[in-house]
């Protein structure tokens, strides 16, 4: 890219609606799609878009993220100049400052940004699954001569009230923000992806920092203030797959989308690879009793049971006489003989006991926990 772009990847979120999946790791570190973590998507998008300087802002449970990203080698971000920089909150002369909002997180790293001396700053969120060419977005921002460009996605009208909706005029100029509106006037949802002209952003971040009324958030504070002041704010219509995997259900759905060739989420597309850290494991083995249909399986697995429409992570052992369908089985899991799992998410290293079945599941997607196993045991004793 000609004019220098720095990406600031907001990866500090907890993702509390993902329940026990994110008790000990930040949402962007959540394993996804058999061998990835959610953050692989925005990081790979950066690499594939030619963005070579990425700041990753962490706060909640950062250890896994920090060790996972390391020097950024899997994404080719281990550069002499630029590359990936981990940006956790830090202490300074005035005391410790936690990131109180998305804007405060970026503001507190203003020295980092200044040292990069960018022309444009791309704000990304570390908890969405999508493939996007940020270069096209930045080019659009430049062509429009915008101060800020918000990437938007057309969502089905009936779901529009779940999103932050952006109302635009015919020139795609943003006229209004509508956070989860009851009666949406448009179906353009904000993707949490913004491009700012750095000079403008700096100005607004500094003003926001001393504004005591502010919650220091991009969506609630920075963008509305910029609009009030008549800065040029443009919406960029993104077309393609995008999903916020904020809940157990949407996390499960996004995994299932990988198995649907028409979903628009294709990991086998060599033109837009999603990169990931790769462990040293032997190839997967499908045994004589194994039967795998419409599924994805990874290194180190040994499959001796029946697997349908499922995502199987690395080092999973599925024993004989098991039936696994529409499930997400994370790495290191062992599913013992005779267990039956339908629409179940099994967290890493979990041992599913022999003959296990979820109690009273109905149509629900179940995130397997020790309590679920207890429930099953109790029923057996009755």
């Amino acid at each position: 890219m000609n004019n220098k772009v720095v990406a600031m990847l907001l990866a500090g979120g907890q993702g509390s609606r993902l329940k026990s999946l994110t008790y000990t790791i930040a949402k962007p570190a959540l394993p996804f799609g058999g061998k990835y973590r959610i953050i692989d998507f925005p990081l790979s998008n950066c690499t594939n878009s030619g963005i070579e300087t990425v700041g990753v802002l962490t706060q909640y449970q950062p250890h896994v993220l920090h060790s996972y990203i390391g020097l950024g080698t899997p994404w080719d971000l281990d550069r002499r100049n630029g590359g990936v920089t981990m940006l956790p909150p830090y202490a300074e002369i005035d005391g410790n400052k936690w990131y109180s909002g998305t804007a405060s997180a970026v503001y507190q790293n203003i020295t980092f940004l200044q040292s990069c001396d960018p022309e444009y700053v791309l704000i990304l969120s570390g908890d969405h699954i999508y493939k996007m060419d940020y270069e096209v977005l930045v080019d659009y921002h430049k062509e429009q001569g915008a101060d800020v460009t918000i990437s938007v996605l057309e969502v089905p009208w009936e779901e529009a009230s779940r999103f932050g909706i952006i109302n635009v005029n015919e020139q795609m100029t943003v006229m209004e923000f509508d956070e989860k509106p009851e009666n949406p006037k448009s179906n353009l949802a904000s993707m949490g992806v913004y491009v700012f002209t750095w000079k403008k952003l700096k100005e607004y971040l500094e003003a926001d920092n001393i504004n005591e009324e502010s919650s220091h958030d991009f969506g609630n504070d920075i963008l509305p203030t910029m609009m009030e002041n008549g800065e040029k704010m443009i919406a960029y219509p993104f077309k393609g797959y995008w999903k916020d995997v904020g809940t157990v259900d949407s996390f499960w759905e996004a995994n299932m989308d990988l198995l649907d060739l028409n979903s628009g989420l294709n990991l086998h597309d060599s033109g837009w690879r999603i990169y990931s850290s790769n462990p040293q494991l032997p190839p997967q083995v499908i045994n004589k009793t194994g039967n795998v249909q419409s599924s994805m399986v990874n290194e180190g697995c040994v499959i001796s049971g029946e697997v349908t429409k499922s995502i199987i992570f690395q080092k999973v052992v599925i024993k004989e006489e098991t039936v696994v369908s529409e499930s997400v089985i994370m790495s290191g899991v062992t599913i013992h003989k005779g267990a039956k799992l339908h629409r179940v998410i099994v967290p890493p290293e979990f041992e599913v006991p022999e003959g296990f079945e979820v109690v009273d599941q109905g149509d629900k997607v179940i995130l397997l926990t020790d309590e679920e196993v207890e429930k099953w045991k109790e029923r057996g004793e009755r």
Partner: protein
Amino acid sequence: MKLLAVVDASIKKEGLQDLTMKRTVASVPFAGRYRLIDFALSNLVNSGVSTVGVFPSYPLASLLDHIGVGKSWDLDRRKNGLYFLPVTQRDGGISSVGSFAGLEEHLQFFTKSIQPHVIVTNSFVVTQLNYKDMLEKHIISGADFTEVVSKGVQLKTYILSKELLVELIQTYAENQIVSVEDVVNLKKSPYTFNEYEYEGYFAVIDSVQSYFEASMDLLNEDKRAQLFLGNRPIFTKVKDEPPTRYVSGSHVERALIANGSTIVGSVVNSLISRGVYVKKGARVENCIIMQKSTVEENCDLSYVIADKDVYIGEGVVLHGTPDRPIVLRKGANVSKEDLR
């Protein structure tokens, strides 16, 4: 660690010609995602050896591409680590392990290092050897040479003192000996010889047939468990491949499959490397299909070894036998018309 390692990757095996037209024996793909040399290198690293000289001969581009600076084996060290030391093989090359002429070309590797012992190993034997244990037994024995044997088979791996090795390298011409293996086999006086009995899985890969048999061994759970140990992993150059996709209607039974593949047809008793596409209606049985190869619709293959980047056109029928598997060389393009 008091051990310096020599991996002799210069040896050619006539029986493996079909798989080594453009690569060394050391870089022959094995077990879906590995190269033969991975086993020697991983054993060294898992035994705590951190100074490793790899002595390859031409054509070595594929080996160099695979090993690089040794990062996958943690051998990219500021101090010690991996040394890539190609040998020119005057006189057409020596077919025994640890050729003194080859080692002589890089005498500095030995004279500049501080380790008192040297392990001389090769890249055509697949094992899970613990060199640390072997060194201890070697020192206790007091012998000049310790050789690895397993069930009466020589695994062509030796430990000797560096001092002795350097002396042998400097005097081999007048002594009429050509290699470390040669000295051990001739039981040359005045040296003393000790044997180290190895009990795990091993395979000596010196022909297409032994390659095929060793590959098929990996479909056996016991043998696989002896080779792939959780605490002594086999390291290799990692590629970033997506998960393998099993499409609805596919049939897979007793197969070892690497990542990045797509299986639509039927795969039985076979090994499938990374990025392979087995299309609809295709039958693959008792086969080895290597990286990025495509098996088109309605093919019927048994006892076939397809090297990398092989394209097998629609409806091709190829049946080898267990004793004589059919080898399709790297990059081959096979169509029904060719076979008529």
